[in-house]
């Protein structure tokens, strides 16, 4: 063998050498989503046309980022999701987070609020303030934001079925603080489609729910132009057990569905598309996640331009919030979760996120303590200020593997779009349990792989500790439920109940017509009508949704 031959690059030679080498066995080599790929990506693995597939940051197709300067211009918003007990406790946590350098607020509501029940409803028993903050009325919302000038913060509210009521409460708090609606900045989740698909916090059947969402989109376009009326969310789809590609595909398909309803309403695409935002999961399989974010931007830009005829470049930008994967956290050796969260957060940053929530290490056990939340926030601050990754835009762009993964995510997403179309669209596919089945299958496959030790989870199925001590966890004071019930009972006694009845009667008439319900909901909020009362009125007109249980 001559010296020249041995230094000649040879893909074939590598393939043979690779094949001849013994491999580790036992653990799967596929991604966490089950995706197979070659052990090495080369120029032959992936075909990229630089200009049309990647382009430049802030330019079509936005694969490399939505802004020209990305984190050299401005860091992502560090936004920790918080909420528990009554509005007073959460207000305190909000102020704590702002004092520690958080740059936006994010509100978690309790289950009764999310399901449209007042705290004094029998179905709310035991659930008030447990998983988030209880908000029954404008009164509570005012307490929640006491001392926080709404003109100066951006607020995110994670609520879906009763999003319209919560938006009305927020607008009214602004009004009382003297901040005009068109100065309010923030996001409300409102993504009802993923509720039917994954998170299951639905109240009404899909069609009236979609009408209410479209009312909000239309109203915000006119009244709250800085507000994001929907955050189209893959997060919960992933948490329910989907693969990365399912998260991507189902989320985008939901996004297209909101667009189609708004266009049907007669809105111009460029009047609302710039205010649509997204919310993705950051799971542990690093490159798969980065490919997912990059593919998401490219698909959204292409479809908005080519399918929906958007002309305003802002309509083409997929801006997204990311949260690290709650489902990847372990109750065993919980400190190790700090490491998991760090890796996930890094994937989100390298994927070009606009805002980020890092989970706290104790969240497989309970809602996080203040100390745990601070470490989670510090994790973001270390990534932002100490690692240097913010100095380079899309630093993994051009990596053969990352480009391959981006293309693969995109390919799988389009395959799902075809399947969904064939079923008659997202709403029909929901009714046929399509998404629910796909997700349950993926979740079961993953669980089986873990139980067969084909996937190792540190501290759970390998490297266990005999004496695995539980850290101190946050306890929700059970007396808060009684306190909140007293607040709402007292409100119901002291307000002008004739005005309440009148506002509800108008809302009922509105719900039976095709009028935009937002002005009626704002009026009801001003009259101290509670969230549960408004939802009950709509339940009477629209009925409730029940899914067919399958497993």
């Amino acid at each position, binding site marked *: 063998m001559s010296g020249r031959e041995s230094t000649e690059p040879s893909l074939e030679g590598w393939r043979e050498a690779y094949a001849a080498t013994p491999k580790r066995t036992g653990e799967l080599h596929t991604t966490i989503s089950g995706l197979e790929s070659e052990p090495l990506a080369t120029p032959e693995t992936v075909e990229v046309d630089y200009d049309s597939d990647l382009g430049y940051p802030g330019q079509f197709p936005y694969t490399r980022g939505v802004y020209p300067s990305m984190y050299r211009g401005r860091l992502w918003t560090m936004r920790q999701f918080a909420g528990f007990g009554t509005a007073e406790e959460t207000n305190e946590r909000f102020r704590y987070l702002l004092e520690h350098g958080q740059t936006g607020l994010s509100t978690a509501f309790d*289950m009764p609020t999310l399901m449209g029940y007042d705290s004094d409803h029998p179905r709310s028993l*035991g659930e008030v303030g*447990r998983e988030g903050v209880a908000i029954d009325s404008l009164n509570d919302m005012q307490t929640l934001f006491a001392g926080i000038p709404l003109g100066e913060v951006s607020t995110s509210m994670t609520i879906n079925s009763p999003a319209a009521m919560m938006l009305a409460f927020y607008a009214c708090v602004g009004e009382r603080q003297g901040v005009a609606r068109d100065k309010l900045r923030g996001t409300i989740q409102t993504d009802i489609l993923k509720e039917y698909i994954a998170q299951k916090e639905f109240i009404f059947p899909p069609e009236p729910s979609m009408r209410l969402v479209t009312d909000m989109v239309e109203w915000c376009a006119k009244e709250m132009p800085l507000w994001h009326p929907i955050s189209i969310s893959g997060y919960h789809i992933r948490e329910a057990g989907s693969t990365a590609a399912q998260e991507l595909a189902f989320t985008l398909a939901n996004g297209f569905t909101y667009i189609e309803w708004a266009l049907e309403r007669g809105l111009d695409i460029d009047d609302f598309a710039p205010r649509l935002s997204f919310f993705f999961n950051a799971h542990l399989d690093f490159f798969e996640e980065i490919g997912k974010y990059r593919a998401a931007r490219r698909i959204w830009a292409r479809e908005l331009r080519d399918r929906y005829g958007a002309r305003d470049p802002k309509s083409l930008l997929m801006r997204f919030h990311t949260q690290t994967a709650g489902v990847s956290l372990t109750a065993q050796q919980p400190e190790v979760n700090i490491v998991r969260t760090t890796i996930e957060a890094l994937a989100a940053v390298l994927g070009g996120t606009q805002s980020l929530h890092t989970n706290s290490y104790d969240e497989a056990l309970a809602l996080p303590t203040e100390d745990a939340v601070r470490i989670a926030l510090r994790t973001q601050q270390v990534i932002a200020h100490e690692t240097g990754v913010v100095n380079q835009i899309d630093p993994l762009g051009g990596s053969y593997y990352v480009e391959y993964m981006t293309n693969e995510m995109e390919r799988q997403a389009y395959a799902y779009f075809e399947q969904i179309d064939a079923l008659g669209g997202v709403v029909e596919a929901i009714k046929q349990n399509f998404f629910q089945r796909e997700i349950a299958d993926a979740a079961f496959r993953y669980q089986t792989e873990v139980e067969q030790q084909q996937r190792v989870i540190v501290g759970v199925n390998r490297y266990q500790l005999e004496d695995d001590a539980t850290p101190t966890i946050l306890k*929700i004071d059970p007396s808060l439920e009684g306190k909140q019930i007293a607040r709402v009972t007292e409100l119901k006694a002291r307000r002008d109940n004739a005005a309440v009845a009148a506002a509800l009667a108008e809302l009922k008439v509105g719900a039976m017509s095709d009028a935009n319900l937002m002005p009626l909901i704002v009026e009801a909020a001003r009259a101290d009508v509670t969230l549960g009362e408004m939802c009950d009125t709509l339940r009477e007109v629209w009925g409730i949704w029940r899914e067919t249980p399958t497993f």
Partner: protein
Amino acid sequence: MIRVVIAKPGLDGHDRGAKIIARALRDAGMEVIYTGLHQTPDQIVETALQEDADAVGISILSGAHMTLVPRILDGLKAQGLEDVLVVVGGTIPEDDAAELRELGVAAVFTPGAHTSEIVEFLREKCAPVA
């Protein structure tokens, strides 16, 4: 055949765990009745009665377990179903788990539990008396 009701009480819609357990128990040869979401304690007791259940598996991640689980236990007792084995799964802090076991819950399975462990437990506890 062991008959198991898998139940989701309260308002919480997180059903990933419930569905995985339901499927694993079915694959292990048990008869599984999944209630679906948003069940009240009374509805769960009624299902256990109607379905002649050997066991009820309660999946809960909302933090409302200390309110809802005792009500289910009381309801089962009131119907004369104290022989029905009750197991709970979810994010249950250890102190609460201990209290639930004291109240009559046979086992509490928390994040990281294997489905095979749950299958074995039910097989052992629900075995027909020889």
